[in-house]
């Protein structure tokens, strides 16, 4: 059964903003799917419609075969949502927020507490379970949203910027956690502005811009499309001018830094041989940009007009 199928999904807000202009989207079972796009592209709007929080203007949505118009409860049962904005009662304790949400899915109070323990421990919130939500830090609030979305064991987990404002250590634990959930069979849709996060976690990807899907493919195929890479070299000794490195193009950023384009058909090895011949010693090297970031900017900047 297909976890998510949207066809010709359209949304025009009452103020006239056309947030979605007919998007088609299909997510396969067990997928880890990235939904990317710049600010205001329409990602949260699409997620809102799928989760019954936003009224669609036109189009169809089916979640595991349950049409949103005909069988909304069937659809809702299988979705877990981590929203972009904090939307819990700030005056409730962590455990009550989670148990209430579970209750709305038919899980008894007692069972909710039992299920909450391992999840809260995994997300490092167990010590805080009796703390009122307003006394949590921003990163803890994000993790609370994740815990709340998992208690009813959804088969489709939708994460709208789950790692925004989360420190690097916790982010890594969260990545690992999300991967585990995915490996256990939960289909995940992830929205994020950290493209390395999407690159390392997701297998398929859709890029949305101005309410249109501008790209929908597998992560591998998208990355293969990259022609060449740009590397930044840090030098051991200062250089007064840009050396001739043909066939490579490059430029001197400062005395100790060079930027070199490695186009298709050439390799890093060739570049290093050349540098060696010229007696230039490189102390370190890095990619100028994340690979997905480059593609993303190409697609979004050259993407469909508003």
């Amino acid at each position: 059964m297909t976890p998510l199928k949207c066809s010709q999904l359209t949304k025009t807000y009452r103020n006239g903003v056309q947030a979605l202009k007919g998007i088609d989207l299909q997510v396969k079972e067990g997928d880890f799917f990235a939904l990317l796009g710049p600010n205001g592209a329409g990602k949260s709007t699409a997620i809102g419609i799928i989760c019954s929080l936003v009224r669609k203007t036109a189009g169809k949505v089916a979640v595991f075969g349950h049409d949103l118009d005909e069988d909304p409860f069937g659809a809702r049962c299988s979705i877990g949502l981590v929203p972009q904005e904090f939307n819990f009662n700030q005056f409730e304790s962590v455990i009550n927020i989670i148990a209430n949400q579970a209750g709305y899915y038919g899980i008894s109070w007692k069972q909710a507490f039992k299920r909450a323990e391992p999840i809260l421990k995994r997300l490092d919130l167990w010590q805080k379970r009796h703390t009122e939500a307003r006394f949590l830090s921003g990163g803890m609030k994000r993790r609370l949203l994740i815990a709340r979305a998992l208690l009813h064991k959804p088969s489709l987990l939708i994460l709208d910027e789950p790692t925004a404002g989360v420190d690097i250590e916790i982010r890594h634990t969260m990545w690992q956690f999300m991967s585990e959930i995915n490996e256990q069979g939960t289909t995940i849709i992830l929205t994020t502005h950290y493209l390395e996060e999407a690159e390392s976690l997701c297998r398929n990807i859709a890029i949305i811009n101005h309410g249109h899907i501008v790209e929908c493919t597998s992560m591998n195929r998208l990355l293969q499309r990259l022609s060449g890479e740009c590397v930044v070299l840090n030098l051991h000794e200062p250089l007064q001018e840009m050396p001739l490195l043909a066939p490579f193009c490059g430029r001197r950023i400062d005395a100790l830094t060079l930027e070199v384009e490695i186009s298709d058909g050439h390799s890093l090895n060739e570049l290093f041989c050349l540098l060696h011949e010229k007696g230039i010693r490189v102390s370190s090297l890095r990619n100028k940009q994340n690979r997905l970031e480059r593609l993303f900017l190409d697609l979004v900047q050259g993407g469909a007009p508003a």
Partner: protein
Amino acid sequence: MSYSRVYATALMTIIRKEVRRFASIWIQTIVPAAITTALYFLIFGKVIGSQIADMDGYSYIEFIVPGLVLMSVLTNAYGNVVSSFYSSKFQHYVDELLIAPVPDWIILAGYVFGGVARGLTVGLVVILVAMLFTRVQLVHPLISLLVFVLTAILFSIAGFINAVFANNFDDISIVPTFVLTPLTYLGGVFYSISLLPPFWQSVSLANPVLYMVNGFRYGMLGRSDIDIEIALLIIVAFILLLWSFALRLLAHGTGLKT
């Protein structure tokens, strides 16, 4: 799991949450009504009431007890739902219900139940306060209970509708101030409409609160300005009307979904 099990658990969850909410802030939710009505009994009942002739054959303080009890029931039922549901909109945690497989009527029933629980709790506290000042009678206990509960239900639904339309905290106090209070004070809490000139008697009959106050007065004292059957019929009719209106608002997502 069957849907009916899910619904029952969801309903219980909303009710538990609502009751815990007003119980945990009882100083704000229960005590004020007790203090205000104690003052009413003291001033209108004891101080001024002693100067007032009997009303419908009852001492003035006996006469106003049912009205004051019902007044606190309806304002508290209304106030509970309007502030609780509006807070859930304001902080967006109403989303927790909207994304879950919870039908609209369960949401409504859960909040109404919370309002009724608060209304009845406050009503009982006010009856206890009244007992400090006068003899409290209960001629028709079942009818009293029925009017008591139906009034709480009606005003809980009304509070829910107010919250659906409210866009800021002022909007949740406009209706209580400009509609509820006048209707209640003019609804025969403090006087029998037989004291009014015929024209104002007819005008008073258009006030739904009159039927509740008199229905409850009938239950407690055994007599009222209005037939009890008509009073009950009108209250039930209003409940059905507002209930279906509230469900339509929820189905449409008014004030909840963009």
